[in-house]
C-alpha cells in the first residue's frame, strides 16, 4: 500500500497530476519555509544536513518524509542535503496523580496509580531540531 502511494506521489511531484498527496509533503513544505526563516540572518551557502524528530504518535511515515525531502531539495541551497530522522517517544501525563510516563501502546495506563485518564503531552509533534550548514 505504501509503495503504491509513494509511486503516485512521484507523479504528483514530477508530472503535476492530480493524485494522492500525503500530508508528509505538506510537513516538508513547512520544513523548507522554517529553514529559510532560520537562516535569514546567517550567511549560509550550503545546507548539508537537516535533523528532524518524529513523535511516535505523529502519524508520519519516515519513508514518505524522506521521499518528499528528496524531491523538494533537487536544487537550491539544500541540494544534496541529508535528512536525519529521529524518533521521539509518546509521553502521557496522568489526570489523577500527575505522573508523566512513556506511553508505549494501548491501553494507556498510569504505572503509578493505574488510572486510565491521561493527556498526551508529547509524541504527536514533528520537530525540526537543527541544521548543519556552511557559512
Amino acid at each position: 500500500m505504501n509503495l503504491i502511494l509513494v509511486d503516485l506521489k512521484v507523479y504528483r511531484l514530477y508530472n503535476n497530476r492530480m493524485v494522492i498527496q500525503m500530508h508528509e509533503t505538506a510537513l516538508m513544505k513547512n520544513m523548507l519555509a522554517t529553514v529559510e526563516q532560520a537562516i535569514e540572518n546567517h550567511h549560509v551557502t550550503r545546507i548539508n544536513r537537516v535533523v528532524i524528530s518524529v513523535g511516535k504518535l505523529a502519524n508520519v511515515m519516515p519513508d514518505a518524509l524522506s521521499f518528499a525531502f528528496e524531491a523538494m531539495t533537487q536544487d537550491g541551497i539544500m541540494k544534496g542535503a541529508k535528512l536525519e530522522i529521529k524518533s521521539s517517544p509518546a509521553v502521557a501525563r496522568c489526570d489523577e496523580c500527575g505522573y508523566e510516563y512513556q506511553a508505549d501502546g494501548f491501553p494507556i495506563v498510569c504505572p503509578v496509580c493505574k488510572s486510565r485518564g491521561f493527556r498526551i503531552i508529547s509524541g504527536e509533534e514533528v520537530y525540526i531540531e537543527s541544521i548543519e550548514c556552511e557559512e
Partner: protein
Amino acid sequence: MAKLEIKQDLKSLNNMKAEENRNKFKSHGIYVINMMGSPGAGKTTLLENILPRLSVHLRTAVIEGDLATQNDALRIEKTGVTALQINTEGGCHLDSEMIENQLRKLDLDSLDLIIIENVGNLVCPASFDLGEDMRMVVLSVAEGEDKPAKYPTAFLHADTAVITKTDLLPYVGVDVNVMKKYITEINPKTVIFETTKKDGVYMADQLVEYIIDQARRKKGI
C-alpha cells in the same frame, strides 16, 4: 561547518491557524464538529439524516472535504442546510487554513453549528487540528470490530465515536460491544453512539440530542 538549532514543530503553522479559527468560533458562539472516518463509513449519510433535525434547533452549515467532486455538498444542500465543498485535489486531509478560507464565505453571526466532514481517511486528518470543539470519528460495523486498535491515533482524541450501520451486525459477524471496548481502550473518555436503520428509518436520536446539548452549552443557553 556550523550547526543551527531550530527547535520548531512543523505542525505549528497549522496549529496557529487552528487556534485563530477556535477564537473566531468562540467569539461568534459557534459549536464546531470535525467529523472523520474511512471512505464508506457513512459520514454523509449520517449528516443527511441528522441535519434536518439539528437545523430545527441550531442554525447550521456544513463544510465538505473530498479529493474531487461537489457530490457531497449537493447531497447536503438537499436537506436545506448550506454546504460548502472543499476539493483537496489529491490532498489527504483538511487543514486549518482551508477552513479559514471557507469561513470568509459564511455569515458567522447567523450560525450556531458548523459540521466539517473531513476527507475520507482514518490516518492523516487526525494530525490536523481545525479549531473544532468536538472531534467525531465515524465507523461502520462492516469495517471490523478491531478497526480502532488498528488506527489508534484517529481515536486517541475522539470526543465522540459513532458506530453506524448496526442493522448489518447479523451479517458481518461483529460484536458491537467488542468494538466499543476497543474504542474505550484507546480513549476512555470517548462518548460512543450507535446509529441504525429500522423499517427504513434512520435512527440517531441520542446523537442528535447530544449535539444540541453541547452546542447550547457553548452558547450558554
